[in-house]
């Protein structure tokens, strides 16, 4: 009985492997109907055979495109026009921070003329009496978070949040931190 089962299992495995082989051959022939299956054989057999490796780059190209398209789209090009949306007054600090950190973008006051939009939120926690008494500090705690969104597509291309304990310059510090990190994000490959 067990012998029969064993033969049956071997037969199923053999049939399965035959099917898999025929599928991979079909994909290598140029159809590319199952591009997700191609990288596996390519990675399994690195550089020994020339023929199995040949179709791998061609078949993996669409897979690479799938990955690289969003990455390319998420880059904020240098010189982009950015609109800073209302954030309860914090937008002025963000604008000042961007200009101070010399971020290579052009800030516009009109949303229709912009390619990207910055929106976000900011919170200030003032120093209480305990902080003044025990720490002798009257600095505020600041936290802010922004998102840069491409207006046409609606994609969020950059996001950053900052939390400053005992902020020396209040909202100005948070605005400049945003400017600094936006500067690092722009123009990087």
């Amino acid at each position, binding site marked *: 009985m067990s012998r029969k089962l064993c033969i049956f299992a071997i037969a199923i495995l053999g049939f399965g492997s035959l099917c898999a082989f025929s599928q991979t051959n079909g994909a290598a022939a140029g159809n590319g109907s199952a591009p997700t299956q191609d990288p596996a054989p390519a990675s399994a057999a690195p550089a020994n055979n020339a023929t199995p490796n040949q179709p791998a780059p061609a078949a993996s190209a669409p897979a690479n495109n799938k990955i690289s398209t969003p990455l390319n789209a998420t880059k904020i090009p240098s010189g982009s026009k950015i609109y800073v949306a209302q954030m309860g*007054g*914090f*937008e*002025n*600090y963000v*604008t*000042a*921070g*961007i*200009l*101070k950190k010399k971020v290579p973008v*052009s*800030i*516009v*006051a*009109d949303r229709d*003329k912009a390619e990207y939009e910055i929106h976000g939120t900011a919170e*200030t926690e*003032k120093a*209480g*009496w305990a902080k*003044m*008494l025990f720490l*002798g500090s*009257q600095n*505020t705690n600041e936290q802010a978070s922004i998102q840069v969104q491409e207006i046409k597509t609606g994609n969020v291309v950059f996001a950053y949040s900052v939390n400053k304990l005992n902020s*020396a*310059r*209040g*909202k*100005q*510090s948070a*605005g400049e931190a945003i400017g600094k990190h936006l500067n690092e994000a722009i123009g990087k490959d």
Partner: protein
Amino acid sequence: MLRKILMIVLASAFCLPGVAKDEPAKKIPAHAKVFLAPMGGFENDLKTAIEAKKVPVELVTERDKADFEITGTSDTEKAGAAKKAILLDWHSNEQASITVSNIKSGDVVFAYSVNKRSSAHGKRSTAEACAKHLKDQIEGK
């Protein structure tokens, strides 16, 4: 040789205006007409400061007649009982931020933020700091 020189001259003639084109748009010319948008009362302090610091701009009361607009915000944190009792400090903490934008083009040409802890003269100090830096920007310092 002449051909090369001619090519260089032609190339520079085409390129230089393109380079120079962006520069004037990013500056506030002297004696430009500036409108101060409402900023919760801070616009009055700013107006006084602009006059006190002799910023070379012409303030107008109607936005339609202006070339540039100043928008901004200002926060005051008055000294609480704890600050007065523990730090023996009656002065307020002030912070303000202004943005100057070209009304026609919509470009933001100047922005500045200031934070003054225990400000000696309250909003007046922050307004004068804004005016001072605006003056520096106009004069190209």
